């Protein structure tokens, strides 16, 4: 392979002139030092939330789904909203690790590990909800199509809810294996640096005898590429099938053909927002500013801007076609969303998903860490409400006005949502202590990227460059006109 040439416009991916050894030191430091007070406090908080959720779910299972605020008009609400929300969050990780890998986006290396971890934890959180929605979760194995002794009772292959089981379990399996394969070389680094015997033993088992030879690396890279290829269609298929839970019905507001791509884009949008929220905290707490630079955050902000705008386009298309179709029920559903009893939820959704992300058009905002943090939280809120709006507002006023109803979540449902956040953060905090949070091997491979004497005028494109000798007057005028 000939050596790679990079344009002088490329920004370095790793800042601070760190050496390869320093990269290992800095990235392994959180694993090797004792947990600080911040970590313990965060962990205690997450565990408490998880405990609250576990209590609520226990009560719900013991008592029945009547503990929820559902009624005969609104039969799906909080639980499904949370399910779709968490599945959506679980999209960024595999997108970053697989799709961006195939697109040769080198900036993914600093964020892929923690984003993938997040994906896996988010999918675990998502999986909890259909399970508890069954009411009798001990019968969950009925969703598996195995030869059974229940007579004609058999899973319904024509139901998208069953496709969900397959889609999500496949996605979870591939994401987990893909993540683990990426972890192996770094687990070996952790093993080689381990001081205690137990630590060394555990990491030895986990790193499968990795010896760092070029043969091992070569096979690893082939496997990684293959997994990236396999995982890419899964990133799309999961939320496509989740969208079909709704779109295969004939309910206005649920049935519309744009749902599959619109859900996928929305999932990437929400996933990136969650990655952004977490990484902004993480880079600060564990001092990863040299690896997760403002450029990384800016790239993620651009993905959020693009996907948020596509989501906005999808909202408008739905609204327009609802009118264009001439179908009065379709039209009513959308007008009701924007002006009916749940208008507050609709406008939270539109504001957080479409309006506020437009601030990311400004470079200053894309590079301001506090602003990004706030905007990413808005997106998280907005995307939760998007699912709520789709699920609940399409149901609450059906064809029969006498059965129109409102829906209010009960404390049990809210506690369950809190519990899912507890589960997510408990797992994430444990990950931060147990596994390398950065893909060491990959970061080292890009540590020289973009690091070279720089052309001074390229540092900030918004400032006019000093007039260079020999440059035509016209070029100079153009430059000044740009300012």
């Amino acid at each position, binding site marked *: 392979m000939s050596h790679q040439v990079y*344009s002088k416009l490329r920004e370095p991916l790793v800042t601070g002139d760190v050496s390869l050894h320093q990269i290992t030191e800095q990235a392994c430091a959180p694993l090797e030092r004792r947990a600080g007070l911040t970590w313990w406090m965060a962990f205690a908080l997450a565990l408490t939330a998880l405990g609250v959720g576990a209590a609520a779910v226990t009560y719900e299972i013991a008592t029945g789904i009547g503990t929820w605020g559902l009624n005969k008009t609104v039969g799906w609400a909080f639980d499904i909203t949370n399910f779709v929300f968490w599945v959506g969050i679980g999209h960024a990780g595999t997108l970053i690790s697989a799709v961006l890998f195939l697109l040769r986006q080198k900036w993914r290396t600093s964020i892929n590990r923690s984003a993938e971890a997040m994906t896996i934890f988010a999918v675990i959180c998502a999986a909890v909800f259909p399970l508890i929605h069954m009411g009798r979760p001990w019968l969950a194995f009925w969703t598996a199509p195995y030869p059974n002794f229940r007579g004609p009772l058999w899973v319904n292959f024509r139901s998208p809810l069953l496709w969900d089981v397959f889609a999500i379990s496949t996605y979870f399996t591939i994401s987990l294996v893909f993540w683990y394969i990426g972890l192996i070389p770094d687990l070996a680094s952790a093993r080689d640096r381990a001081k205690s015997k137990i630590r060394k033993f555990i990491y030895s088992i986990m790193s499968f005898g990795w010896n760092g030879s070029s043969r091992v690396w070569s096979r690893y890279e082939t496997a990684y590429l293959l997994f990236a290829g396999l995982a890419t269609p899964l990133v799309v298929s999961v939320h496509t099938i989740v969208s079909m839970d709704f779109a295969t019905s004939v309910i206005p507001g649920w049935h519309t*053909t744009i749902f599959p*791509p619109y859900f996928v884009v929305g999932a990437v949008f929400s996933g990136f927002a969650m990655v952004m929220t977490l990484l902004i905290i993480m880079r600060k707490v564990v001092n990863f500013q040299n690896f997760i630079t403002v450029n990384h955050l800016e790239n993620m902000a651009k993905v959020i801007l693009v996907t948020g705008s596509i989501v906005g*386009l999808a909202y408008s298309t739905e609204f327009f076609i609802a009118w264009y179709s001439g*179908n009065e029920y379709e039209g009513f559903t959308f007008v009701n969303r924007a002006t009916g009893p749940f208008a507050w939820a609709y406008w939270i959704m539109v504001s957080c998903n479409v309006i506020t992300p437009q601030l990311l058009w400004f470079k200053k905002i894309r590079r301001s860490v506090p602003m990004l943090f706030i905007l990413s939280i808005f997106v998280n809120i907005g995307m939760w409400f998007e699912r709520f709006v789709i699920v609940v507002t399409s149901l609450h006023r059906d064809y029969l006005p006498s059965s129109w109803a409102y829906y209010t979540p009960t404390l049990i449902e809210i506690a369950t949502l809190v519990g899912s956040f507890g589960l997510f953060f408990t797992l994430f905090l444990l990950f931060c202590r147990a596994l390398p949070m950065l893909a060491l091997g990959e970061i080292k491979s890009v540590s020289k990227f973009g690091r070279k004497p720089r052309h001074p005028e390229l540092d900030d494109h918004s400032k006019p460059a000093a007039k260079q000798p020999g440059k035509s007057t016209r070029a100079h005028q153009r430059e000044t006109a740009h300012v």
Partner: protein
Amino acid sequence: MNQTKLQFRTGPAAPKVLGVLAAIGLATFAAGLIQDAPRAWSSWLLAAFYFVTLALSACFFLAFNYLAKSGWFVALRRVPEAMTAWLPVAFVSMLVLALGTGQLYEWVQPHGEHAHVIAHKSPFLNQWFFAARIPIYFAAWIFLSRKLAANSRAQDADGDLRHTVSSWKTSAAFMVLFALTLSLASFDWLMSLDATWFSTIFGIYQFAGLFEAGIATILVVVILLRRRGYLAEVNDSHLHSLGQWLIATSVFWAYIWFSQFMLIWYSNIPEETSYYLIRSQGEWWTVSFIVNPAVNFVLPFILLLPRAAKRSPRMLLRVSLIVLVGHWIDLWAGIMPRLMPQGPTFGYVEAGVTLGFGAAFALVILKKLERAPLVPLKDPYLEESLHHNI
């Protein structure tokens, strides 16, 4: 770089041959108008829209590569730049189409049992507003695509980075306007042919076809230029990357095609199934459900799966031609069945008009390619592109 091969020159015969073919196309259209006006107009719509998508796709390709700061595409960038030069001609072709709305679209004079549903759409679907939207779409497309091409050529002269920065901004503006205008344009020109039918994914479906066919066109032009000794800077890795885009876009097309069909089939709502109902009658079924997915997805996907295929100019050329025929069939199966529900017919009008448009399109590209060096000489990412190696 080989200076002599940097400047593209067409032979003396090519413009004449292409000009004659374009004239033949116009003549067939005129003959078709006399013989069977609705069919002639449908052929015009098919050909005009087909080449709009190729030119727009080129501009989209430029815009997303600028925005993604990709370096590899620089060496072949003049090809999509030249393709966008078709847009002004496409504008004229669509204005001509506005004269034929009465022959093409049921909504011009709603009749029959669904007339009230169609009349409901009249604030949007009426001849005046339909015609007025055409200049709006094209104003955005022509202005922004010319800006991208102009920036690129201005940089050849002075190597100023400002042109790249300006292209980034232009690309961002293009993306926003493209998303809005393409959705609406595909509702206007194609979806409203079935006046009572609607599908929210339709704009994305047209986008998918546009994207795939655009990559195929870029590949065809690049490979033919290479065969004549031009574009030596474009190596097998560039072809590989384009081949990857072709396979990716063919999968994307299949995904969107399937999503639309599957949801309409599953829900089985009469006002939606009407679209697929006329496309499942007689031989239209074969065209819509066998031929169309085969040429736009199955063949490109299988043929381009091996790495070696994506680096072979011969294979890429073949697959690209399959996809270009496929895109035509996709639009044909979208436009014609309503007019000819009894079954697909392919006659001199469809062939002649498309041929005429194709010749004019090729002529415009060749002329445009002559106007600038085939490689953007002073692009800040050029070195990266020249060393593209995957």
